[in-house]
């Protein structure tokens, strides 16, 4: 069984090596091959399951922070909410995980020369012009909808899309299908037909 585990650990490394061999020239600068990154996230999920007994996930973080903010502005009301009685907001594994994802993103961008203190992306500007206010408002609305949906479904692209599916969770596979249905429809409307 230990040998099996060792083989499993080596597999993504070998896949990555083979992939770099083929495509190294396409991956100058900051970017890594999607297969290397995917295998890396897969191995990271082994580690979080083994060491922390947690799947990778991001969306619960937002309910936690909303709880912290709620406690600041309306302590009594926030504490009385049913959701926070079963899952009180706390500085837990998931909270630290997401905070440190910011740090990881910074480290990767910095070492790759990709720090971009910008509001707009070329693709957005081409379609909607260079109003920062418009991008801000749309981004905010998208964020509200997305977090509400994630909490309703019980997970996001990481919690359902990667961790849930790899555990063969029936609900996660359904969620991913509906995320892609909603996403493709909205993106096509926004960028192609509207």
């Amino acid at each position, binding site marked *: 069984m230990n040998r099996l*585990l060792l083989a*499993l*650990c080596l597999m*993504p490394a070998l896949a990555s090596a083979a992939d770099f061999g083929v495509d190294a020239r396409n991956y100058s600068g*900051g*970017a890594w091959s*999607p297969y290397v*990154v*995917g295998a890396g*996230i897969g191995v*990271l*999920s082994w580690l*979080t*399951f*083994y060491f922390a007994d*947690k799947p990778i996930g991001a969306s619960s973080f*937002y*309910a936690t*922070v*909303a709880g912290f*903010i709620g406690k600041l502005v309306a302590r009594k009301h926030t504490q009385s*909410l049913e959701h926070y009685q079963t899952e009180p907001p706390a*500085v*837990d*594994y998931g909270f630290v995980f997401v905070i*440190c*994802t*910011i*740090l*990881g993103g*910074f480290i*990767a*961008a910095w070492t790759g020369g990709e720090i971009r*203190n910008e509001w707009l*992306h070329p693709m*957005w500007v081409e379609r909607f012009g260079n109003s920062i206010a418009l991008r801000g408002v749309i*981004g*905010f609305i*998208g*964020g509200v*909808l997305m*977090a509400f*949906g*994630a909490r*309703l*479904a019980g997970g*996001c692209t*990481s919690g*359902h899309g*990667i961790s849930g599916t790899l555990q*063969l*969770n*029936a*609900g*996660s596979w*359904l969620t991913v299908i*509906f*995320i892609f249905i*909603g996403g493709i429809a909205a*993106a096509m409307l926004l960028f192609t037909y509207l």
Partner: protein
Amino acid sequence: MFEEPLKLVLGLISGILFGVLLQKGQVAKFQKLMGQFLLKDFTVVKIMTTAIAVGTLGVHALVALGVAEIHVQTASLARVIVGGVLFGTGLAIFGLCPGTSVAACGEGRRDAMIGVLGMFVGAGVYVASYEALEPLFRSMADYGKVTLPEFTGTAPWPWAGALAVVIAIALALLERAHPKRLDAKL
């Protein structure tokens, strides 16, 4: 208020690794996620499916060894369908998801920071309306916390193996149809 320190340290290490992987994989970028939904850039699907294939083998091996446990979410049909569609719509409007948007904040992206604020509000609205929503969803079809092997009464190993093989084949075909060089260079 605080979980045990060991868990927090593990969160720190795995969070940093996750952020590095997302940013290096170019998925902390608006163009990549929007390109995926417009079916012009397949980086997101390539990363997700590779992670699923590698992850499912290892995690099921750990479970078989008795050193890890499965943690699945509930499969309430209404929650999953309504939540999934709302999530996907919001994702396409904002252009980043809950994990990739924080990695994008690390890149310094200002619009990502605004979207993260929106997510605090969205999560808060959910929590505040939980008491009103919960009975509604409780009355609808709910399969509980169930995995596909449990649902069908089969062993998880053939599922995990078959899934990894299917993903490997699908990716080989996808790479032929849509090579990485066609994905946006950013």
